[in-house]
């Protein structure tokens, strides 16, 4: 049995009404290479950013090596009586339409030429009613059970981990971005050493040695004194990977690392990632490279609309997808089943 490194339970992320992640459960073992695939807007990137708290999740449990670093069992949204809210909203719609119709009837009469005192008075009355109805629009806050929420919070107080612990955790779970995000004011070597000296408190010599080691691994050792803007996209991404490796991370998160690159550069980055996978590093990769997911990853997750639709061992996932949605996606992605 391999060791569980990361555990995700009931993870959800709402941007107000926009529910990006609805219910995500995932267990990551040491040495897993997990590929997350899915259409754009399905919440893949948000999920990755929630893992190292670059984005604050709305609710859920995140645990890294047995330490819960994020734990909110129920959020405010769970205490909103959605059934009653929807019913009231439907009723309100009827009332609103009635008021609008009444107003329109008398207004039309006046337009048609029946300009009488009575009609004018009725229009005035209907306008008053219409305005009143508009003000009575049901509010979600009215259906929020504040007492129950407060009672719940009293029982399960939100224990946020400190900023220091957060940074500690992030350094163990480094991330590689789609847009590289290298520091433009520093050369490649400094890019790789600064986080080591500032976060891990290594000496400059030690961190330099380490940086050279990792840069050699990604085959960038001869560009150490270049600034990022003098590098090509693939080279930048390799430096970004080296920068992440310098921190001795337990998990490396890749957020579409090859999406901004041309096909030739994609290969040089994927080669590096394959090398890392063969070293037994734990990686979570959001990708559109189906071949990478098929050949390198040992577990594939298909996400759509904020849920994990299907997950499984990479070989069987591509050979025999179970869900209809997965089949449709893979067909569109031109994967030979």
């Amino acid at each position, binding site marked *: 049995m391999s060791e569980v490194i990361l555990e995700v339970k009931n993870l959800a992320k709402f941007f107000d009404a926009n529910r990006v992640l609805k219910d995500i459960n995932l267990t990551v073992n040491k040495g897993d290479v997990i590929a997350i695939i899915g259409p754009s807007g399905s919440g893949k990137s948000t999920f990755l950013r929630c893992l190292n708290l670059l984005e604050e999740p709305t609710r859920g449990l995140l645990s890294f090596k047995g330490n819960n670093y994020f734990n909110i069992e129920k959020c405010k949204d769970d205490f909103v009586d959605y059934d009653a809210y929807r019913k009231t909203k439907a009723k309100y719609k009827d009332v609103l339409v009635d008021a609008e119709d009444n107003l329109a009837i008398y207004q039309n009469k006046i337009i048609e030429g029946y300009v009488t005192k009575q009609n004018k008075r009725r229009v005035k009355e209907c306008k008053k009613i219409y305005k009143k109805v508009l003000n009575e629009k049901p509010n979600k806050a009215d259906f929020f059970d504040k007492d129950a929420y407060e009672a719940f919070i009293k029982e399960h107080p939100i224990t946020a981990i400190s900023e220091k612990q957060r940074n500690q955790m992030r350094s163990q779970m480094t991330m590689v971005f789609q847009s590289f995000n290298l520091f*433009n004011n520093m050369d490649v070597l400094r890019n790789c050493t600064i986080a080591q000296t500032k976060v891990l408190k290594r000496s400059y010599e030690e961190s330099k040695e380490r940086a050279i080691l990792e840069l050699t691994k990604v085959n960038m050792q001869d560009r150490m004194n270049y600034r990022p803007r003098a590098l090509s996209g693939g080279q930048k991404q390799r430096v970004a990977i080296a920068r992440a490796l310098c921190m001795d991370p337990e998990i490396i998160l890749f957020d579409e690392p090859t999406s901004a690159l041309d096909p030739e550069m994609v290969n040089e980055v994927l080669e590096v990632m394959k090398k890392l996978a063969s070293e037994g590093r734990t990686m979570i990769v959001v990708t559109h490279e189906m071949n990478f997911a098929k050949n390198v990853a040992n577990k594939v997750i298909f996400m759509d609309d904020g849920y994990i639709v299907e997950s499984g061992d990479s070989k069987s996932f591509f050979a025999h997808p179970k869900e209809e949605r997965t089949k449709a996606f893979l067909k569109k992605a031109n994967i030979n089943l």
Partner: protein
Amino acid sequence: MIDLAKAGDLFIRNQGLIWAGIISTLILSIFGTVVGLFLGVFIAYGKNLKVKPTSSWIKKVGFNIIKGLCNIYSVVLRGTPMMVQALIFKYGCAALGLNWDAIRFPSLISDVFNGWFFAGLIVITFNTAAYMAEIVQSGLNGVDMGQVEGARSLGMKSSTASFFVVLPQAIRNSLPTIGNELIVNIKDSSVLNVIATTELYYRMKVISTASYAFLEGYLILAVIYLLLTLIAAGVLKLIEKKLDGQKISLNPFNRFKRGLFA
């Protein structure tokens, strides 16, 4: 007409005073720009303060007060002429019983630095800080926030990230504007003569009045200011190149060959 011999004579006879004026103008403008930039960074961060909705009310109120003070500072100091600020400072100090005349140095130094020189230094620094805050703020907004995320994802504190990643880039990107401010300061320090700061213009005014050579005197003054600003612009370009990680050559021939002043 212009009598070149007279002008040359005027310059040579009053060389000591003119050099003292050049030195004090340079110190006023460079000190004002550098310290003003330093203050401006703080004011820019003050203006950019953001409070989380979860933070305590003391923090919220405090942050808003700091933010408001920084905004008022930059609006007021940018909206009034430096000459007026200098005069208000002078008479304000007098009203408070502070006498800048009382500051005296041994004879050689006091030729360049008298008490009012330090008063001028304070006025120009605080005036520049208001402009610098605006410049630095736009520089901060111009830096790609992805790099902050990159730094955070490696576990850096947000203060570390903004000090080592964002601020250097913000200052690098706004360096042309900051240099502009230095050149403006070289010229605008002349208004400090209203509070008897002994800078270049003040010296030349005294010299030309004493010798009745107004045209010659102010022509010499114009040439000196022009040379000072040209040199300042050249030095700033070198600094820009240095910050970009390019190799710079101090050999003037090489520099002209590469067209530095082009």
